[in-house]
């Protein structure tokens, strides 16, 4: 059986690329036996959801274009 460290790495990899059949089986077997890693996989997915939603949710938290920048940009357009 693969270790928890190897599992964590594969769980991340799985979010970006297709795993090989062997990797998938190794991952599945480990996840069935190890509750921590199953939780960890869930956290990885939640993390992506959080950061995907964070940009929209925090649009009002973040300062807009400062007045000075606005002036500089308009000035640059004149050149």
């Amino acid at each position, binding site marked *: 059986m693969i270790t928890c460290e190897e599992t*964590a790495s594969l769980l991340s990899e799985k979010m970006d690329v297709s795993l090989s059949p062997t990797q998938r089986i190794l991952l599945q077997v480990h996840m069935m036996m190890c509750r921590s890693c199953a939780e960890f996989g869930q956290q990885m997915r939640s*993390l992506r*959801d*959080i950061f995907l939603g964070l940009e929209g949710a925090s649009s009002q*938290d973040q300062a807009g274009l400062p007045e000075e920048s606005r002036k*500089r*940009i*308009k000035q640059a*357009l004149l050149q």
Partner: protein
Amino acid sequence: MSEQKAPLEEVSQLVEEHGDVLYRYARWRVNSHEVAEDLVQSTFTSVLKDWQSFRRESSVKTWLISILRHKLIDYYRKKKPESIEDIPEDITMAAKAAEESSEMVQDAESIRLNPEEILENKELRLTLRECLDNLQERFRQVFVIRDLENKSTEFICENLNINPTNFSVIMYRVRMQLRDCFIKHGFPSLFKDKY
């Protein structure tokens, strides 16, 4: 003369109307106010230059964002020669990341992350923004293009000139760091079902 002035006035108006949106978009993706401002400026300069070619087939905002996205990718591409050394290439670095994550995996059982709950909390949102800003610039770029811009692994490897193995190591490390940040800052309020 009036023909030249009209686009300038229109683009200046766009700076007023859409400057905030573009700046926030850029600032999410680069870890610097100055760079974000430069990217927005460069976007509007291009808009002025290509004013005649804009057919208004899409909304102005969509058009502006699409130009800005190209500017961002260009910026990332240009950054690559000086940043390539930041990418872990040897097994030691990968092993270190695995070792760090090992401790986290052991803690995982007691932590529940609830995206909706987190996103509703302004204080937590600001902290997470800070976590993103604290990432090493190169790592941040890869993460942003992958998870925020939703680009494929192939696109990122080609444009940032990194190999797939390095890409996987970077994404793994970024996710670990961000998760670590959750634990450090948001941990108490994120506990559920914990004794």
